[in-house]
């Protein structure tokens, strides 16, 4: 590490704008980047806008439901919509996602019903989607451990011998800035690098690991760490959905071709609390939040659409109304979620029937049946 790189850290202070890949400014101006050209139609931009608004609304509803005692906890993605939608829309069917517990927008891109996510935090399911069907692994709560799973899975794809063909897939592991301090993440960097595994490490640097600021996590910009492990790292404006899309597309393509891993540091900001049990006013300043509000990921797409004459008020109103309708439906469905049958605990323990488990399941069923019907005794 040179003295310069030390000086370059940490946080926003040491970051020259030239390091940040940006294709859409906070003012809604389209800019080009030599390494990351992006061909995108107006209709696709409108689609991205719709995605962004919808996931924000779903997230808002989940926070409200938590405040009303209907969910146990919720990790809000507020402010990180572009990082998740941009990277999520870069994925193809052959790719496999390994998320944390905050990747609600990526789940949305992978067609995981938001109701499943709510059920998880309501305590009535364990996620309940088939990771294989959606190319989207279950939420990982333990910080950083999914990067190891993703690396192993990527090495599996490699061993399938499909890289470079049209059947090729890659994995993408999501994690946060705090996770970069975890051993698991660093181990997975080592393995991915030396095995040249088809994986994209997608770090959403939202500046805060709960109450720990970035400068207590790293003395150099996070993306620069990749160099030390032997693969490329790139920092992208995490509030710029175009840039996140372009950079992730290129990194995934790179991986599928057998060119090895990439670390993407999506430089963004967690506008809300870490989770609904956290109170950010205790450790950070309002002024910082206000500064990031000006970089809102949705506003800049809206400004761009208006500037291009690609959307009018009617479109924005319709998107808003549709998101609200979805949220209302989601609320209803969430409140109507039934408690699981006690015997459901046995159902997903093993892929194949298992004699001991079957016996235990029968015993448990008999035990449950041994009770009087409600209200018939006493």
């Amino acid at each position, binding site marked *: 590490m040179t003295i310069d790189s030390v000086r370059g850290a940490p946080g926003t202070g040491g970051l020259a704008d030239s390091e940040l890949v940006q294709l859409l400014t906070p003012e809604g101006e389209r800019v080009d980047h030599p390494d990351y050209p992006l061909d995108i139609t107006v209709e696709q931009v409108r689609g991205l806008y719709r995605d962004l608004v919808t996931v924000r609304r779903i997230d808002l509803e989940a926070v409200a439901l938590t405040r009303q005692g209907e969910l146990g906890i919720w990790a809000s993605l507020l402010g990180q919509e572009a990082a998740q939608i941009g990277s999520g829309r870069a994925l193809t069917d052959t790719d496999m996602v390994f998320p944390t517990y905050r990747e609600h927008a990526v789940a949305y891109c992978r067609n995981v019903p938001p109701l499943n996510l709510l059920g998880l935090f*309501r305590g009535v399911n364990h996620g309940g989607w088939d990771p294989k069907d959606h190319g989207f692994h279950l939420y990982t709560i333990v910080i950083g451990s999914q990067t190891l799973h993703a690396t192993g899975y990527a090495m599996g794809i490699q061993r399938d011998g499909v890289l470079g063909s049209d059947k090729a897939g890659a994995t993408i592991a999501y994690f946060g800035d705090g996770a970069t301090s975890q051993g698991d993440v660093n181990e997975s960097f080592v393995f991915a690098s030396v095995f040249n595994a088809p994986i994209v490490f997608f770090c959403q640097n939202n500046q805060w690991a709960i109450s720990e600021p970035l400068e207590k996590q790293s003395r150099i910009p996070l993306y620069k760490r990749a160099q030390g492990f032997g693969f490329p790292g790139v920092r992208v404006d995490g509030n710029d959905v175009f840039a996140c899309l372009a950079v992730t597309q290129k990194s995934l393509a790179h991986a599928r071709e057998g060119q090895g891993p990439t670390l993407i540091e999506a430089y963004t900001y967690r506008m809300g609390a870490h989770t609904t*049990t956290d*109170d950010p006013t205790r450790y950070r300043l309002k002024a910082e939040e206000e500064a990031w509000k000006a970089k809102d990921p949705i506003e800049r797409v809206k400004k761009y659409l208006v500037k291009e004459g690609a959307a009018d008020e009617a479109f924005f109103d319709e998107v808003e109304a549709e998101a609200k309708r979805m949220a209302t439906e989601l609320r209803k469905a969430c409140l109507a*979620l039934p408690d699981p*049958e006690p015997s459901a605990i046995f159902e997903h323990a093993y892929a194949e029937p298992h004699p001991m488990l079957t016996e235990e399941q029968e*015993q448990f069923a*008999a035990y449950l049946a041994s*009770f009087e019907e409600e209200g018939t005794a006493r």
Partner: protein
Amino acid sequence: MTERKQFKLPDVGEGLTEAEIVRWHVKPGDHVEVNQTIVEIETAKAVVELPCPFEGTVAELMAEEGATVDVGVPIISVDVAPDGSEPAAGAPTPTPSASAAASASEDLVPQADEPGVVQPEQPKRQPVLVGYGVKPGATKRRARKQASPPPPSSSPSVQAAPAAPAAPPATRPTSTVGGTGPATGSYPQVVDNGLPLAKPPVRKMAKDLGVDLATITGTGPRGSITREDVQQALAGPAAAASGVQAGAPAAATGVREERIPVRGVRKATANAMVASAFSAPHVTEFVQVDVTRTVEAVRRLRELPEFADVKISPLLLVAKALLTAVARYPVVNSTWVDAPDASGARNGTGGGSSGGGAEIVVKHYVNLGIAAATERGLIVPNVKDAHTLSLPDLARALAELTATARAGKATPADLTGGTISITNVGVFGVDTGTPILTPGESAILCIGQIRDMPWVHEGELAIRKVTTLALSFDHRVIDGELGSKVLRDVGAMLEDPLHFLAWT
């Protein structure tokens, strides 16, 4: 026609049991939308805004601002149109595993007449990591069907067998499980029949050791009795007396820390102390005085008919001495008032000093505060217009004040409007202290214990009754000279009560 729905305080953190209502954003009669912010609450972790789960008209706010409310207690009721947008909110789909009592959220928590008051007959709610916490009654077992008559009580070993629930159904054909035997023999150790909770091996151990479980307070989950509890009980009072320090009973049962919520008097005290300590620059001075004559004077006063109906102590003369000193030096009995824009003046470039526009309000009356230790904590009620009272009246007022305070019946009027205070730490057996000012006052006198000490009296070493007086004062208002004079004069009066005559 509308339906009235109640919103119960949810656990908005993980395992929180209560929250304080900070501010209501709505009032009765207001229309509310789903997810509209209705109230701010403060939990142990955070201040959070609660969104309304219903659309409708606010019927009633069921908890006042400032009240601390248990999780699950209704805080607001809303009149909702019957075909409103929230048909499912109050009644999640009942499932076989949910008891009937729990199927409608209205029944999750019993109606409490007062917000925040959990009715005592309900089982204690246990904090859990989700939602509304454990449903009261949800831990009650349903009766078991009986395929055979209950085992006779003469076979306790069968009762204690831990495998009872699992083993018989596994070996029996399932048809017998549905048998229609009498449901009289319910489990021997159900939660709600008053028997203590303990795992079967613990029961066996207690039985073998001859320890009666009913005499033990459990420290395990849900108050269940653990092996350690049984061993503790067996070791019994002997261990408690010899091995364990007095005042640390919690350590004996393995609990190394406990958390006591800060509320009520403790909270008010803490706020007052912080406000005072960090706004008024405190100075404390001390003087040791020979109060043998005061003690003697008190003894003689007790014999006077005017004091026949009241108990008096040297505190009476300390109070009188302070009142006399106030009459001589009125500025000690005053309040520092910041200028309305004091903070602006401080921050501005022009003002510089913190006194710009501030005033010292000198009170020509004395509401004499007496710090009292009560079961609820420290409170400082005051004797109104103490400067006008004769000595017998002052004695009666002090007696009445402390009695009222100790009984926990001090009114807000008793507790506000004080102008100067006395704290008697001598009753705790210590010599002196550095008291913190009661907010809004400029001086507080502290009296320590009176004890026999070697003392130079009239040129000879003698055993005299000696105490230490301390005076803390607000140095913005009172200079060292004035504070010293007040303390010295109080000391002089107590050293020789003749000074009372000279100075009044």
